[in-house]
């Protein structure tokens, strides 16, 4: 087993990997940009090294600097988290060359499957159904041509994409050029690669993905599915496991297809096969995510496995710790991604200082967070600041726990998606599990429900008392019956409270 690992990432996922390292007795080495000196992952790591200025291209994507740091710190392996360099075959290859273990699939496997187009073409060869569209990257001109063939609506996707970045749905020809430009630009800044392709957009389908683990000894297992249909702008918003739509038969068919594909690609480590599933329970392979997923905790909570530890063990040459027959899904888990964005203002990103933070806890609740009270949410990076995960014996209990925990979660100073999540999880269709990939967009088009009724009075009362108590005592400006005296009483009461 490794004695020290470098984590080439930041935020909640770096914290997640640090925790796994600590539990395994492995030293955790963080890297940070100048914007992240005071970040939680730096504080919690055993060691931390500066790797460059705030923009990702100069820090978290700076391969030379990261490799150099790994050597200085004397680590044996690098965990890339998700995003950044996690699916970059050149980085994986560079690690291989430098005799650093890349905690993920081999560079060959990433090339074979990690790029979205390569994965599609391999799947088609292996006999797994794929969504109609291109199987290689396209020029702008070729995209226009392909769209003519497959028909609108289509989705433009970055071949190196992930997390909804570099992805645009296009329903009218007029929007095509702009969408290609935006997708390339986002892809370029997020993944250092502007390549895009196009595929048919299957509206009304579900996005369901299958988690697999594959080790160097040839064992491949599937860990059940995740339902990820609740998306906005192709960003997953809420994920759950199991899917309310998947029965044992469909799970086995999808799981076996995923295992077949992983074997065909010589894939190792944790990976996810994304599928679109239509109402007839037909599934179409979308892409392989050749890394840990943001939403891996829901699988962890229903299987009891720790996917990061499995990744590390596999990278160290150890076998997966379970056999297919021993994998049991228990209960139901659901995740809400807490974004720093304003759901009431077109989901505008909301960087800033978190001046107040109260986190939920108690039965069935897990918080994977990269924030703390007083921290800065930077403009430079992804707006995921925390993930809230709830487990219950069944879907109903999981959702009730999630709502309870969302109600306890107070993040002030930046806007967050918490009110959005609370409203999603009260929708009757969501509660019934009747969702698809366009569900949230359609639901949002109806407008977000505003503030609950009846709280304005409380706010008005609280505000006036707040102003009243903070007023300098000398300034007794009229009012009914000796305000100065009553203010003194109040001050005395506060003192008493404080002394208690």
């Amino acid at each position, binding site marked *: 087993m490794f004695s020290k690992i470098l984590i080439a990432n930041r935020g909640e996922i770096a914290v997640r990997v640090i925790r796994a390292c600590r539990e395994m007795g492995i030293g955790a080495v963080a890297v940070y940009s100048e914007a992240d000196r005071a970040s939680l992952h730096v504080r919690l790591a055993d060691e931390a090294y500066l790797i460059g200025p705030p923009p990702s291209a100069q820090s978290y994507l700076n391969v030379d600097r990261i490799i150099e740091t790994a050597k200085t710190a004397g680590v044996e392996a690098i965990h890339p988290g998700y995003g950044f360099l996690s699916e970059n075959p050149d980085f994986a290859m560079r690690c291989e060359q430098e005799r650093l273990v890349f905690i993920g699939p081999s560079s060959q496997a990433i090339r074979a499957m990690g790029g979205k187009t390569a994965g599609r073409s391999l799947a088609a060869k292996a006999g797994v159904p794929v969504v109609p569209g291109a199987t290689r990257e396209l020029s702008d001109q070729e995209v226009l041509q392909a769209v003519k063939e497959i028909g609108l609506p289509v989705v433009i996707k970055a071949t190196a994409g992930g997390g909804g970045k570099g992805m645009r749905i296009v329903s009218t020809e007029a929007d095509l050029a702009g969408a290609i430009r935006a997708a390339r*630009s986002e892809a370029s800044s997020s993944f250092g690669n502007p390549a895009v392709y196009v595929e048919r957009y299957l509206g009304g389908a579900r996005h369901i993905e299958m988690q697999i683990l594959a080790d160097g000894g040839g064992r491949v297992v599937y860990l059940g599915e995740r339902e990820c249909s609740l998306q906005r702008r192709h960003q997953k918003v809420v994920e759950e496991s199991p899917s309310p739509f998947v029965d044992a038969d469909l799970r086995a068919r999808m799981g076996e297809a995923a295992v077949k594909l992983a074997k065909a690609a010589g894939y190792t480590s944790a990976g996810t096969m994304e599928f679109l599933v239509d109402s007839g329970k037909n599934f179409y392979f979308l892409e392989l995510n050749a890394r840990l997923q943001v939403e891996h905790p829901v699988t962890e909570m229903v299987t009891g496995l720790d996917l990061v530890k499995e990744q590390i063990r596999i990278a160290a040459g150890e076998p997966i710790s379970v056999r297919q027959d021993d994998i049991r899904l228990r209960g139901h888990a659901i995740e809400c991604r807490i974004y720093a964005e304003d759901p009431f203002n077109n989901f*505008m990103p909301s960087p800033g200082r978190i*001046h107040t933070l109260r986190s939920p806890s108690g039965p069935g609740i897990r918080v994977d967070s990269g924030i703390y009270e007083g921290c800065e949410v930077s403009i430079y990076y992804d707006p995921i600041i925390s993930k809230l995960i709830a487990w219950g014996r069944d879907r109903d209990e999981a959702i009730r726990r999630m709502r309870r925990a969302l*109600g306890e979660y107070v993040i002030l100073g930046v806007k967050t998606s918490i009110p959005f999540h609370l409203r999603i999880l009260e929708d009757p269709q969501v509660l019934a599990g009747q969702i698809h990939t366009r569900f949230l967009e359609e639901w949002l088009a109806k407008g977000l429900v505003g503030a609950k009724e009846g709280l304005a009075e*409380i*706010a*008005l*009362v609280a*505000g006036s008392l707040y102003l009243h108590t903070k007023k300098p005592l000398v300034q007794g400006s009229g009012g009914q019956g000796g305000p100065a005296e009553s203010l003194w009483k109040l001050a005395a009461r506060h003192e008493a*409270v404080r002394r208690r």
Partner: protein
Amino acid sequence: MSYLADFQGRTYRVVVTAMGSPAAVQLDETTHEVDFTPIVGGLFSLLVKGRSYEVDVVEEGEGVLAIWVEGELHRIEFEETGRHRRKAARAGGQGKGGPQTIVAPMPGKVVKLLVASGQEVSAGQGVIVIEAMKMENELKATGPGVVKEIKVQEGAGVGGGEVLVVIE
């Protein structure tokens, strides 16, 4: 102490008639008995007829309070009555037909200008693309007009609230 409080287009009269435990607050016609207990920082615990509320208060400007109750934000402007200050006229003036200002909704970077000075724009037309937190956000014209002034250039960093483009 008596306040006029503006919230969502309505003005409320709020009078603190007694402090202590409980305090008494008259809101329009009704008097509320309130146990108002500071917890830590801007957090207060309110008990109103037994109902328990957690309330976070942040002062955003003189008399302007952001007040969260059960996860819901209320932005309220309080003015002490008897003080004869006039409220400053509301900023902006985004009414139809008047000049529009396209303002950065958050700190970020100008990725692309989609219009040129002097160009005519229609309502809903994209004017400028701002990137923050790895997401590109296209800001649109709220109504038709002519681009009068572009105050930033591509690649520039901008602060939240900064005026980017003026359309007349």
